[in-house]
């Protein structure tokens, strides 16, 4: 049986992209919320 490392890495790579992408989306939303809160404050 061949090892097919490229498949292994693409599977893990895809998962990493998805998770990091969601993490960045969350971070972005949190940041924009914080920014809005600051502007509202004194």
């Amino acid at each position, binding site marked *: 049986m061949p090892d097919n490392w490229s*498949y292994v890495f693409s*599977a*893990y790579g895809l*998962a990493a992209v*998805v998770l990091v992408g*969601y993490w960045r989306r*969350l971070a972005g939303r*949190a940041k924009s*919320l914080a920014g809005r809160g600051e502007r509202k404050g004194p």
Partner: protein
Amino acid sequence: MAARALGWLAVLALIAGLGAAFGYAPREAVQGNVQRIMYLHVPAVLTAYLAFALVFLGSVGYLLSRRAGWDRLALAAAEPGVLFTGITIASGSIWGKPTWGTWWTWDARLTSTAVLFLVYVGYLLLRGMVDEPDRRARAAAVVGILGAANIPIVHFSVTWWRALHQPAAILGPGSAPMPLWMKMALAINWLAFTLVFAYFLTRRMEIARLEQEA
């Protein structure tokens, strides 16, 4: 700050998980190194089930108490849940290509995960269609409850349907008893994914809370 600590803990666990999947676990004899995808595939699907269980919990909690916190729990669990089902499907498909020679096969776990994926994408779409918070929460809760109640039914129907058309399934740990190292590597990765999910959940709930207050 607790969320940040959880985040770092999740990162550490992920590193340990990768070490277990690529270093600790030996090359599997039959499938070769491609079997290492399992340490991604199986924890992802387990985490997705956990997420959908929490969607169910949040939905029931909301309908009983009408407290927005329960609805935020349901929402914050559904998003990563869809993400993890997506990872399950993608990794299963990538695993399938070298193993079966095809990107997609109507394997029982892949199929039922795909169905769940569609159910909960629908759930998130529904949430996007309603602006009024209470109305959105109620409608989503009903779909969330039916979706969760449907999980075992989907599972059985798909499994039997597969057994009818093509008896043998080779993917995953399934029937063969797992060696201890495989179980260990799986457990570490499962823990890591659960921590990542917990981190996403707390962050998402916090964001939803801030958005509601704004």
